[in-house]
């Protein structure tokens, strides 16, 4: 297209490209509908009270996925209570206190690297550090902490952007009234940035919920409901992976996949709602 000779007039090229661009736009929508539609079409019929709230029978050939739902909740909860304070506090420092020093550059590069390290490498680290070195064993705690490391950069980046977006005039108003820097941040900046910070936490949560490779060798694969953070567990994505690759049960794999897809859909819709609300607020309406 770039060096097209004048066989096609600019006018025609314009028309052809319009068709191509619209085609690509529709293609993206079609791909999404096919994937989500296929999973829900095959998965939703598996839903029943027994499937959601029941225990698996055998290694998951039949029965339900309640222990996996509980496991997902536990590891995600641990990941968030560790990653949220670290991510948000770091974001406040980067947005409000940091200048342009080498330390700041190093922190940014570290956060960026953390965001791009393959999840299986987090899994390796979780195995050698949490499971073996700190002797936490294959447990909810090891898995949750590994996921926390992955969620930190997501929360940090989103929170930093939203804190930086708070208008300078807000801060100046507060400082002019005699408030100290921290009082201004605590009472003015953070409340104004809360929707953005919440969006970051939800995105971090999504990352923890959907992750499989990082927990493959940290959380164990127990089928029972974990009774404490020291027990092994089997979150939903790991369960789906085992059901699908070991040919345990296709119907239950569809059902588990549908639960995961629904969770992700709810998360996407709620973050969109928050972002819209946030944008409106920032525009002063």
């Amino acid at each position, binding site marked *: 297209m770039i060096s097209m000779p004048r066989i096609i007039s*600019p006018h025609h090229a314009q028309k052809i490209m*319009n068709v191509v*661009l619209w085609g690509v736009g529709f293609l*993206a929508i079609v791909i999404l509908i096919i994937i989500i539609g296929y999973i829900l079409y095959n998965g939703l019929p598996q839903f029943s009270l027994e499937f959601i709230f029941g225990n698996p029978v055998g290694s998951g050939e039949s029965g339900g996925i309640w222990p996996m739902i509980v496991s997902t909740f536990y590891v995600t909860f641990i990941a968030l209570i560790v990653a949220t304070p670290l991510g948000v*506090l770091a974001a406040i420092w980067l947005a409000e206190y940091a200048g342009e020093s080498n330390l700041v550059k190093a922190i940014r590069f570290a956060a960026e*690297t953390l965001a*791009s390290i393959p999840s299986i490498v*987090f899994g390796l680290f979780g195995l050698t550090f949490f499971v073996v070195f700190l002797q936490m064993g294959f447990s909810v705690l090891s898995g949750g902490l590994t996921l926390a490391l992955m969620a930190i950069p997501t929360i940090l980046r989103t929170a930093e952007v939203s804190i930086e977006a708070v208008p300078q005039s807000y801060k100046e108003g507060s400082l002019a009234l005699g408030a100290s820097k921290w009082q201004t941040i605590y009472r003015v900046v953070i409340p104004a940035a809360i929707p953005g910070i919440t969006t970051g936490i939800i995105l971090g949560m999504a990352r923890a919920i959907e992750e*499989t490779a990082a927990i493959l060798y940290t959380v164990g694969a127990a089928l029972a409901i974990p009774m404490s953070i020291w027990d092994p567990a089997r979150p939903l994505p790991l369960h789906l992976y085992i059901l699908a690759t070991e040919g345990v049960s296709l119907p239950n794999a569809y059902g588990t996949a549908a639960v995961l897809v629904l969770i992700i859909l709810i998360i996407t819709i709620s973050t969109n709602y928050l972002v819209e609300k946030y944008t409106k607020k920032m525009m002063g309406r």
Partner: protein
Amino acid sequence: MARNWEEFLVEKVLLLAAISSIIIILLIIGFVIQQGIPAMEQVGPLNFIFGMDWSPSYGLYGVFPMIVGSLGMTALALLFAVPLSIFGAIFLAEVAPKNMRKILKPTIQTLAGIPSVIYGFFGLIVLVPFMRIHFGGSGFSMLTASIILTVMVLPTILSISEDALRSIPLEYKEASLALGATHWQTIKNVIFPAALPGIVTGIILGMGRAIGETMAVIMVAGNTPIIPGSILEPARALTSNIALEMGYALGLHYNALFATGIVLLMMIIVLLVITNYINYKRKVTVGGGYL
């Protein structure tokens, strides 16, 4: 007095949280290297990276077939994903009416949010049988994996490219249109070239995502640790190598899987350094008055 102390303390606590990223990254790199080094030493770094045979039961640890597998799948995926993403980004930034954007934006976001194990499951159940019927073989292949990877990296490249296209000053576009260029000529000759550094950054990040992907690839690529003769043959990625064998690896084998992790880490860090360099150069050009 008390106020000052509070301010001081708060700042130090915040600083500590910020530094935790550095500590974590050093711990990760340190521990993975520490566990991987014994294998690198025993096998020899060059034999490990360029060795053609991976057969732990015979004590053979060469990851070259997996490097070829990872890079091959990634290259194929980018071949499909780059044009699609760039056209998609141009569509979103320049052509799509508001209503279409309102549908397409959340679509891209949802595609980015779908768990990789779901992509793998969909690939295993739908795409693998499809490939088996239409292209022969087992259906598990480098091509199958790269098709799934295409859909997975598309949102990354597309959204970063869209941001890059949108950040081009409006005057550029207006000047080109005023000279009588059509909209497409303006996009092709003015907006796209100006946005290129941002688009390249998006492509490299997409590349990182493809190299690092584990679950989706493991479920559709076939995972044979041999250099594939064609794109329709099965292949194994570096990530899959770790995930497949860590469950039962002991001794040197265990260390060799961590050494595989070192190779992965090196690839990702090289990509990161390149993107940082591009961003740095772009800033220099902007600040230098060229833009």
